[in-house]
């Protein structure tokens, strides 16, 4: 038996006719595997018009639509009816009342069909009769306003002198409530969809298997998702918030740095959840079923469109432990109340817990082929 040292440096081939490029690749940032992988993520995303719609346009449309539907109107003028010109004149003194003088039967008809909230009729001996539905708040208000107008017209002098100072401040409107909710929903959607679909698609195409057949470090592949997510985050959040600020004058009372941190933590947390969802699925159908299963309950209970407080107290601990609830509560506290990180530490802990649990489990389960 011959004794031979075998060194792993066999390059057993002729060199004739080879392309003459044995030189190492030019280093350069653009040639780095992580940069190339991240660029590929962007290209795949940006060249998918539907993805662009769902990430950028849809939340704006939603905010615009809901903002318009639930906008705060100027103090409303109440419609009331009466049957005599004297009463109509006295009532007309109040600017909050829109008085129509109608014939008796027409006035009754208008009251019955809700076209007016109150019907003022003369009673016997100079008295006045108010006819209205006392279960209708508009009716009750109209009665108070009408009564005040008539009494003042008849010479009543209020014993206490009062004046009004009006406050219509942004921060307490529905749109102010909605924008942080949509922001949270968007962070969840793009992290979970963005990761889930791309990963499952690459697995289904056996592209992932092809990549691990190269010297690509595996963690680069996952890191490229993280990096592209963080860059996209800036664009996404910036887009939605500028819309809220410039169109609806939504307040930004908290520190922007804190808000950025909240967005990053939220995104990482949902990214980990997305990775977990996509860790084993082999078909787009299986993955999207799972994603909907995970996201749908949170859309409903986590307070995107209405306060999560509306659900029974019994459920509150569960609802509060959901990542979307934590994210939205924290975003609202920052934007609307100007809360600092210390005040949202509970929510940050919830988000961090999801990240710390999901990420290692996802890596453990992850199927590369």
């Amino acid at each position, binding site marked *: *038996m*011959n*004794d*031979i*040292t*075998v*060194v*792993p*440096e*066999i*390059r*057993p*081939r*002729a*060199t*004739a*006719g*080879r*392309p003459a*490029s*044995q*030189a*190492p*690749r030019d280093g350069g940032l653009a*040639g*780095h*595997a992580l*940069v*190339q*992988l991240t*660029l*590929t993520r962007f*290209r*795949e995303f940006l*060249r*998918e018009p539907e993805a662009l719609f769902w990430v950028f346009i849809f939340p704006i449309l939603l905010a615009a639509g809901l903002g318009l539907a639930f906008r705060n109107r100027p103090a409303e003028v109440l419609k009331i009816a009466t049957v005599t010109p004297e009463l109509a004149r006295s009532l007309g003194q109040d600017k909050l009342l829109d008085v129509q003088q109608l014939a008796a039967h027409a006035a009754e008809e208008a009251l019955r069909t809700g076209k007016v909230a109150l019907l003022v009729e003369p009673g016997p001996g100079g008295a006045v009769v108010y006819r209205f539905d006392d279960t209708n708040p508009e009716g009750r208000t109209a009665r108070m306003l009408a009564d005040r107008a008539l009494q003042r017209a008849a010479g009543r002098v209020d014993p206490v002198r009062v004046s009004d100072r009006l406050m219509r401040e942004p921060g307490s409107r529905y749109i102010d409530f909605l924008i942080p909710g949509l922001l949270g929903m968007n962070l969840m959607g793009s992290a979970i969809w963005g990761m889930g679909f791309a990963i499952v698609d*690459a697995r289904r*195409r*056996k*592209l992932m*298997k*092809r990549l*691990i*057949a*190269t*010297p*690509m470090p595996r963690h680069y592949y996952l890191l490229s998702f993280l990096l592209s997510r963080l860059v996209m985050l800036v664009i996404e959040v910036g887009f939605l918030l500028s819309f809220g600020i410039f169109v609806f004058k939504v307040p930004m009372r908290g520190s922007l740095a804190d808000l950025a941190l909240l967005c990053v933590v939220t995104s990482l947390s949902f990214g980990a959840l997305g990775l977990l969802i996509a860790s084993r699925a082999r078909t787009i159908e299986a993955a999207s079923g799972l994603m909907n299963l995970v996201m749908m309950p949170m859309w409903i209970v986590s307070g995107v469109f209405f306060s999560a407080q509306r659900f029974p107290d019994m459920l509150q601990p569960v609802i509060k432990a959901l990542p979307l609830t934590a994210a939205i509560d924290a975003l609202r506290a920052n934007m609307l109340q100007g809360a600092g990180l210390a005040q949202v530490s509970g929510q940050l802990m919830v988000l961090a817990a999801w990240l710390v649990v999901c990420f290692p489990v996802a890596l453990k389960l992850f199927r590369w*082929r």
Partner: protein
Amino acid sequence: MRDTKKMPASTTTAALRVRDLRKTFKDVVAVDGLELAVRAGECFGLLGPNGAGKTTTIEICEGLTVPDSGDVELLGMHWNSHAAELRQRLGIQLQETQLADKVTVMETIRLFSSFFRHGPPPAEVIALVQLEEKMNSRVGGLSGGQKQRLALACALVGDPDFLFLDEPTTGLDPQARRQLWALIEQFKLQGRTILLTTHYMDEAEQLCDRVAIMDHGKVIALGTPRELITSIGVEHMVEFSAGGAAKALEIPALRRMDGVRDVRTENGTVRMQVTELHRAVPALLEELERQGVPLTELRTHSATLEDVFVTLTGRHLRDE
């Protein structure tokens, strides 16, 4: 004596050596005690029907599948100790990889290039597989043949010493196949070692210096295509069909004829292995006339690897 490893001298000339490889998936034995040695610089073909264990074998060699037992030595290295170094020196084309559709040819090659320490510039690799005109087209818009050439280009970006090609032309039209063959011929001239799997006998005959015929996870024959064909001892095949009269045919009489090695019947077609065509065919016609059997079709061809497979297993390569 300073060295610790004892190995036969022949190790250094084999680019790939596989010993007693076994792999079982659930209850299916995919690879069953396989032995292989691929010499440096040769193009070696694994030929066999679907399900013979070709892909499992090649993926074990590529370090993508872990065998149940056995040993793979590649370029003098092993997967468990030199995986990173091996990855740098291999070019791999997998069966059925769909590259990302939205990304262009150039972007795809740049991405794959970025994983390797050395290698030609992306444009050069693209030129190598003749995709210059499609350089800025998206992968989704390429034809089947172009996609396959791009897959080949992805295998070449690291200037590999060893190239694994798993069914490189499956599903392509004849023209695209010939184009791909020409490219692979070119790689052979550049001195790369190639291991390819195929279930096309013509592909193996055309490209491979040596062929291992696989069936049920084992190598059942090994040699150059010419050696394998001569090993079955016949030069030619004669096939004829005798229509409805085939049942009446006296097969033993055909077997006794001069220069005939073997006779098989299959769905009304009779296949004869023949050593001397010019004597066997007239004798056959005479014999059929004597038996009163009408001849409806007669074909002859030189023996191929397909015939080798049929002779060894009694089955066709493409029983799909």
